[in-house]
C-alpha cells in the first residue's frame, strides 16, 4: 500500500471514529449506549409524541394601546399648556384626529407634537378647520411589532419554564412575523399549558372612582354620558357575592392610571384563603420603589375612606375600602381553586403579555403513536436496507460489499452530523434519508456499471476502475449538486417539515459524495494494489 492510500485510510478512519463518537459517545454499558443515542439523536414531535402549538400575537392591540396612551398624554399636555381644542379622537390604531384648535395656538400645538411626540407625524386634517391628524410613523409601528414579539416570546418562555416542562421549543415560526411556535415534548394534553400561555397576566391596582353599577349605561348616566377625564368603566364581579353566587357582572368607574402594575411585583404565591375555607388566593409582594408609592397612596386614601380595585386583565377581581396604610403586599381573591391560584401566581411571576394571543394550530401526537411510528419506521428502514445490501452483494459480488460499506458509512455520517448539529429527525427527515440511500445506491451502481462497461471494452482491472470512477464522477456531481441546490431553496423558503427534509437531504448527499467516490475508490485502490495486474475484478 502506498503512502497516499495509507493517508486516505487514516482520514476515513478518523471520520468513522468521529461519527461513531457522535452517535454513541463513550458508553460503558448497553443501557448507557441506548441513553447516549437517545440523547444525541433528537426526535421530532411526530416521532416522540407531544404538543405543537402555533399562536398569533395580536400586534394591532399593542399598536392601538400606544395610540390610546398618546391620546391620553396629548390631552393632558394640551390642558397643561392651555391650548384650546375641540376634540381629540382616535381614528384607528395608528391615527389620531385633533379638531378645532384655537387659531392662536396652532403653532404651539405643532411645536408640542414635534417636540414631545416624536413617534407621530402631523398633517392638517382634510376638510377640517384648524384640525390636525397625527399618524404613527411606520418605523415606530415596526418597532412596536418587534418589541411586542420579543417580549411575548420571553414571557411565554418564562412561563413554560416555570411549568417545569422538559425540553420545550419556543421560537418564531418564520412563516409570518406575528406567529410563535411552542413545542412541548411529552405533553399529551396541552389544555392546561395553553391556559397558562394565554393568560394575559396584566395586574393593576387602581383607585375606584365610583361603583358598583349594575350596567354600563347606568354608570355613564350618573356622569351625564361623559366620564370624568382619565377614568374608564370596567366590569367586575359583585363584591358581596361569593364565588358560587352568580349575580351577573357589575361595573366600576376607575382611574385609568394604575398605582401599581404587574411590573412592580417582587413575588406572587398561591395559598389557602383565610376568609373562605377551601378557597385559594394569590398573595403578592411589591418591589421597594412601588411599596413606597403604594404606602403613600393607601395612607391618603385611608384618611378619606377611598376604595381600591384589583384589576386583572381588565376585569375587576376585588374592590375594597382602604382601611389603613398598606406597604408592600396584597392579595387577589376571587374563588380560585388550588390549581388556578397556582397558575395565576406563576403567570404573575413570569410577567404580563404585551398583547393578547390567539391559537392558530394545535397538534398533539400521543406517545403510543410516536412509539409506533419509530418502531415501524426503523423496522421498515432496516428491512429495506438489508434487502438492498443483499442484492448489491449478489449482483456485484465483492464490489457489492464495497458499496455496502459505503452505504453504512453514509448513514453513520448522516446520523453523526445530525447529532453534532443538534438537528431534529422528523418523519419528513426520514424521507430525506430514504432519498439519500436511494442516491447512495445510485452512485455506486453508476460507478460499477461504468467499470463493467470499461471491462467489456477490453480494459484490465486498474484502468477500468480508473475510467469508471472518472466518468461516473461528473454524473454524480451533477445529480448531487442539482438536488443540493433544490434542497437549499427548500430550506430557505420552506418551513417546519419541508426544512427537516432539506437538512437531512443536504447532509446525506454531501456524505454520499464522500463515501461513494472517496471511500469506495480507496477500497478499490487497496484491492487493486493487492492483486495481480491481469487478474479479474470481482464485480
Amino acid at each position, binding site marked *: 500500500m502506498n503512502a497516499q492510500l495509507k493517508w486516505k485510510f487514516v482520514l476515513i478512519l478518523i471520520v468513522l471514529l468521529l461519527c461513531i463518537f457522535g452517535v454513541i459517545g463513550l458508553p460503558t454499558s448497553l443501557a448507557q449506549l441506548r441513553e447516549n443515542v437517545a440523547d444525541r439523536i433528537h426526535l421530532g414531535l*411526530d416521532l416522540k*409524541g407531544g404538543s405543537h402549538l402555533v399562536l*398569533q400575537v395580536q400586534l394591532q392591540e399593542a399598536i392601538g394601546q400606544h395610540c390610546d396612551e398618546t391620546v391620553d398624554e396629548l390631552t393632558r399636555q394640551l390642558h397643561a399648556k392651555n391650548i384650546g381644542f375641540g376634540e381629540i379622537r382616535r381614528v384607528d390604531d395608528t391615527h389620531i384626529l385633533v379638531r378645532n384648535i384655537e387659531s392662536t395656538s396652532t403653532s404651539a400645538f405643532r411645536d408640542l407634537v414635534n417636540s414631545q411626540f416624536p413617534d407621530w407625524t402631523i398633517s392638517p386634517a382634510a376638510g377640517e378647520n384648524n384640525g390636525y391628524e397625527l399618524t404613527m410613523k411606520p418605523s415606530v409601528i415596526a418597532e412596536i411589532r418587534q418589541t411586542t414579539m420579543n417580549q411575548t416570546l420571553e414571557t411565554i418562555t418564562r412561563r413554560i419554564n416555570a411549568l417545569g416542562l422538559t425540553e420545550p421549543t419556543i421560537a418564531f415560526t418564520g412563516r*409570518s412575523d406575528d406567529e410563535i411556535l411552542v413545542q412541548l415534548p411529552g*405533553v399529551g394534553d396541552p389544555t392546561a399549558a*395553553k391556559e397558562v400561555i394565554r393568560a394575559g397576566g396584566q395586574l393593576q391596582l387602581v383607585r375606584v372612582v365610583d361603583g358598583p353599577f349594575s350596567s354600563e349605561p347606568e354608570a355613564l348616566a350618573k356622569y351625564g354620558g361623559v366620564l370624568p377625564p382619565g377614568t374608564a368603566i370596567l366590569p367586575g364581579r359583585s363584591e358581596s357575592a361569593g364565588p358560587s353566587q352568580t349575580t351577573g357582572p357589575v361595573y366600576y368607574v376607575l382611574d385609568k392610571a394604575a398605582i401599581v402594575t404587574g411590573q412592580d411585583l417582587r413575588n406572587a404565591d398561591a395559598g389557602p384563603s383565610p376568609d373562605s375555607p377551601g378557597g385559594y388566593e394569590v398573595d403578592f409582594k411589591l418591589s421597594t420603589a412601588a411599596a413606597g408609592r403604594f404606602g403613600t397612596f393607601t395612607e391618603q386614601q385611608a384618611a378619606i375612606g377611598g376604595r381600591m380595585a384589583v384589576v386583572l386583565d381588565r376585569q375587576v377581581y376585588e374592590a375594597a375600602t382602604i382601611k389603613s396604610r398598606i406597604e408592600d403586599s396584597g392579595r387577589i381573591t376571587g374563588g380560585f381553586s388550588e390549581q388556578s391560584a397556582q397558575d395565576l401566581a406563576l403567570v404573575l411571576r413570569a410577567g404580563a403579555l404585551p398583547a393578547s394571543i390567539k*391559537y*392558530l394550530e*394545535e*397538534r*398533539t*401526537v*400521543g*406517545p*403510543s*403513536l*410516536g*412509539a*409506533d*411510528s419509530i*418502531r*415501524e*419506521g426503523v423496522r*421498515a428502514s432496516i*428491512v*429495506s436496507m438489508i*434487502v438492498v445490501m443483499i442484492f*448489491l452483494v449478489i*449482483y456485484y*459480488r465483492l464490489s457489492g460489499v464495497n458499496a455496502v460499506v459505503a452505504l453504512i458509512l453514509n448513514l453513520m455520517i448522516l446520523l453523526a452530523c445530525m447529532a453534532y448539529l443538534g438537528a431534529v429527525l422528523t*418523519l*419528513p427527515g*426520514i*424521507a*430525506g434519508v*430514504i432519498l439519500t*440511500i*436511494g*442516491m447512495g*445506491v*445510485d452512485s455506486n*451502481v*453508476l460507478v460499477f*456499471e461504468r467499470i*463493467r*462497461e470499461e471491462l467489456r471494452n477490453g480494459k484490465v482491472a486498474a484502468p477500468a476502475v*480508473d475510467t469508471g*470512477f472518472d466518468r461516473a*464522477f*461528473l454524473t454524480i*456531481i451533477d*445529480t448531487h449538486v*442539482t438536488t443540493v441546490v*433544490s434542497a437549499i*431553496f*427548500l430550506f*430557505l423558503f*420552506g418551513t417546519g*417539515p*419541508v426544512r427537516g427534509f432539506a437538512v437531512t437531504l443536504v447532509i446525506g448527499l454531501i456524505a454520499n459524495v464522500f463515501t461513494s467516490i472517496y471511500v469506495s475508490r480507496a477500497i478499490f485502490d487497496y484491492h487493486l494494489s493487492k492483486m495481480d495486474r491481469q487478474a479479474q475484478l470481482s464485480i
Partner: protein
Amino acid sequence: MELFRGVNVDWMGKAKYFVTLSLLLLGIGWISIYYRVVVKHGTLYGIDFRGGTLVYVRFAGPPPMDKLRKGLEQAGLRNSTLQGISDTENLGSKNKNDVVIGLEQSGSDESLDTGKQKILGVLETTFGNSSAGLPDFNSVSTSDLAGDLTRRDPLLLGTNAGDRYNQLAQHLTAARDSDYGGIVTNSDQLSHVQGVTPAVIQTLARDYTLGGFTIRDAEIVGPRVGSQLRHQAVWATLYALGGMLVYIAFRFEWVYGAAAVIAVFHDVLITLGFFSLFHYEISLTVIAALLTLVGYSMNDTIVIFDRVRENLRLMKRESFPEIVNRSINQTLSRTILTSGLTFLTVLVLYLMGGAVLRAFSFAMVVGVVVGTYSSFGIAAPIVVVWNKYHGGRQQRMTVRAGSAAEKRVVAAARR
C-alpha cells in the same frame, strides 16, 4: 451477475406511445380530481392544508361506530366525519380498532379547540368510565403517574423515592405505549414490566380505571395556517424547481433544464392523480414525499442527459435521436437497478411503515415508477424534438462539456 446487457431499443421511435400513455395517466388522474373537487365539492387536501379538526382514537375493542355517530350528533357535531382505519391495516400493526373523527373548519370565530373539546366530551360521556371518579391509566402522563406513585408509595420506600418512581412510571407508560399500542385492558398486563411488584399492580388497579379508548393524535389547524402552509409548500417547491432548472441550464443547455423540469412536473401531476384515485389526502408529509420524488426523478433524468452529453462528443456520425437512444440503452442497466432497489425500499416502507407513513410511501411507490419512466419517456423526447427543429448536433454543447473547468474537476477527482 449481470442483467440487461447489450440492449438495443429504439426509445425515441416509441416516443409517441410514451406521450399517449402519459396523457392517458394524466387524464384519468385529473378526471378523478375534477370529479372529487368540482362535482362532489370535496378536496384533495388533508387537514394541514384545508384546516379543521382531526382526532385519532384507538378503542380497546371493535369501535362502536353507531354509538359514536349518535353521540357526535347529539353533541351538535353533525358535520363530523367518521372513518375506521382498519382499511389501512398493514403488516406492522394488528390493531383494527382505530377511528379517525374529522370535523370541518367552523366558520365562526370561536376558540380554536372547541371542536376537539366537544369530540373529547362525547368520547368521555359515551365510552369513558370516569363515573368512578378515578383517573384513567390509559391517558395519564408519565410525570403525573410518577407523582401519584410517589405519593402512594406502593413499594414502601419512604421519602426520597421520587427517582425510583419516576423510573417505574417511565417503564409503565413505555410498556403501555409500545407493547400495548397505548391501551391497557387489564392491569395484570403490566406485571412483566421491570420493577413492578404485585403491590404496584394493586395500587394501579385500585386508583386507576382503564379507559376504553385513548387519543392517539389530535390535530387542529386554523384556516389561516392552512392557506399559509399551502402557499409556502407550493412556493418552496417552485423555487426549488427554478434552482434546478438554472443549474442544469448552466451545466448543459437550457432546453435540458426545461425538459427535466417538465418531466418532474409531469411526475408530480400524475402522482397527484393517483392520490385522488386511491383516496389519499395531501398532507405536509406527502409534500415531503413529492419533493423526494422530484429529487429522484431529476437524478434519473440527469444521468441520461449526462450520457447524452458524453456521447455527443464520442459519436460524431450518428443522428441526435440515435445518440439519445444509445445513451438510454447504455444507462438502462443502472436505471433499472437503481429504480428497482429504490422501489423495493419504498414498497417495504409502504407495507411495513405504519399508518403515519402510508400516504407518504404511497406517493413514493407511484413516484419512483413514474419518475423513472419520465426520464426516457418525457424528458429525452422533449430534447430530441427541440433538437429536430432547432440546430443540428449541438456542437456548442460539446464544447462546453469539454471545458477547462470540467477537466480540472476530473483531474482533481483522479488525484
